[in-house]
């Protein structure tokens, strides 16, 4: 079954038939976690770096912020039987939203990714694969059956040329 993750939303699954997808990742981050041993995975689509910007909103919609969103995603996959040591983390998005030659004043994409990296490092995680930055819109798909993450990329401004990246959710070399 296809499960669509909206903005500030998260989905987890332990059903091999499920495919989790999120669309239109600009400066937002799509984070997938997958435990190949348990066959459990999940995805969150976060918008902003830190929940301290609006703690009330963060309580209502934890998947809006990188810190609370990641925490919720991890709690949900652990609940389904995933284990920390097996988790493979793939990140997409964090694009710069500048238009034309204009400046990306708030640099939300970059700040989202920096916050995520700090959080992961402090908590003893490393990103398995990443496709971040640039000036492109991404669609991210996670297949629970095999942990394959597919990222479709399209420039935010102008041309319709699109690219695709496929990450198998295990280390290529090991």
């Amino acid at each position, binding site marked *: 079954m296809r499960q669509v993750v909206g903005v500030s939303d998260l989905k987890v699954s332990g059903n091999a038939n499920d495919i989790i997808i999120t669309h239109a990742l600009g400066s937002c981050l799509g984070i997938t976690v997958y435990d190949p041993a348990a066959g459990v995975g999940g995805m969150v689509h976060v918008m902003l770096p830190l929940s301290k910007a609006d703690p009330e909103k963060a309580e209502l919609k934890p998947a809006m912020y990188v810190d609370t969103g990641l925490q919720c995603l991890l709690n949900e996959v652990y609940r389904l039987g995933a284990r920390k040591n097996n988790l493979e983390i793939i990140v997409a998005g964090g694009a710069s939203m500048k238009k034309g030659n204009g400046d990306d004043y708030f640099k939300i994409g970059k700040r989202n990714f920096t916050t995520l*990296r700090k959080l992961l*490092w402090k908590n*003893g995680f*490393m*990103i398995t694969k*990443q496709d971040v930055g640039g000036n492109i819109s991404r669609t991210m798909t996670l297949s629970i059956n095999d942990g394959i993450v597919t990222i479709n990329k399209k420039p935010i401004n102008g041309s319709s040329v699109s690219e695709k990246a496929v990450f198998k959710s295990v*280390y290529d*070399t*090991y």
Partner: protein
Amino acid sequence: MEPVNILIVDDCPVVRLIIRKTLQLCPVEIENITEAANGDEGWEMVKSHDFDLVIADLNMPVMSGTEMIAKIRIDPTFNDVSILTVSAESNNSRIGLLSRLTEGFVHKPFSPEYLRDKILKVLEKQTIISDDTK
């Protein structure tokens, strides 16, 4: 793959800590991680232990990483030791020269993910070579 013994040689304790934490997060079974604060200490460690991989800085007090690497490479006893240099060195000709003596170079500042990928590449190469020689 058998558990690996790794030596970290860097005069900065923070960098040693970052490398150690990165190693602990790598999907590799590690038997032991040893630390040394300069090339001289590193060379003494290499002589008295059996390391699979040495991760070394270049610019250090007492004895530089370059001198330590040269000592390791001259001695055929340590032919099976892989070396990965982690340094802020930006002189391309020096890096080029080093690449003949070492298995990889990581430029400071580095991301833990980049260092992890380099470490995995070196260890994978080492496994293939040691499997071939069996």
